[in-house]
């Protein structure tokens, strides 16, 4: 069965059969780790944080950009993780494809929402 899954016989709902997603999962993880540390340090330095401090932090362009890049990383990370979950537990190809498409649509929508949250204030 494994030998059947090559060339044009490859399953349409399989992974990318390569290093890309494996590596992206790790790179985005490190990015989120760095962001967590930056956020934590900013949070701890500010003392008693109110809207002034919180909003002020997110009002700076560099922090908006870092947040945006991290969230894009998060969404990609979530895509790889959720796809792996669908691949492990959902066997009918049609259902799996539907769930994968819904996951992508939802995560792309989240990109738009993130932009709105970050740049309208």
């Amino acid at each position: 069965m494994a030998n059947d899954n090559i060339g044009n016989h490859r399953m349409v709902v399989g992974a990318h059969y390569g290093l890309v997603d494996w590596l992206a999962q790790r790179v985005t993880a490190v990015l989120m780790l760095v962001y967590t540390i930056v956020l934590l340090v900013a949070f701890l330095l500010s003392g008693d944080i109110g809207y002034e401090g919180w909003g002020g932090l997110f009002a700076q362009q560099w922090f908006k950009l870092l947040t945006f890049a991290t969230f894009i990383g998060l969404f990609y990370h979530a895509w790889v993780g959720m796809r792996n979950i669908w691949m492990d537990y959902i066997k009918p190809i049609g259902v799996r494809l539907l769930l994968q498409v819904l996951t992508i649509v939802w995560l792309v929508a989240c990109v738009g929402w993130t932009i709105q949250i970050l740049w309208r204030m």
Partner: protein
Amino acid sequence: MSESGKTSKRQFRNISLADLTRYRFPIGSIVSILHRISGAFMFLLLPAILWLLDKSLYSEISFEYFKGITSHWFVKLVLLALIWAYLHHVCAGVRHLLMDMHMGLDKPTSKQSGILVLSVSLTLTALVALKLFGAF
């Protein structure tokens, strides 16, 4: 089970769902399945997280609204679950990255690092819980 009547010794083949209750999970698989569960949980609550972030940033009024909502005990409980999920996912993720670099792959070390992941994430979660529910 009854088919393997030839021998009295219990045979471990593919286990069924019912066997899971009797199966002793090694520490590595507990960390691993919790990594998956915490990830899926955070994905499911992504709309709530973005919504709360939005409320906390939009204006001073919405910030007060955010504070009001997050002071409700049930919301605090959900937030605590999210914080646990994040802490576990991060700790297990760091262990994962180290293992990718071939560090701590032998059985005793991986067992120790698994216990470390669980104890660090649970201790930090407990501290956040105390803070969240006003113990200090």
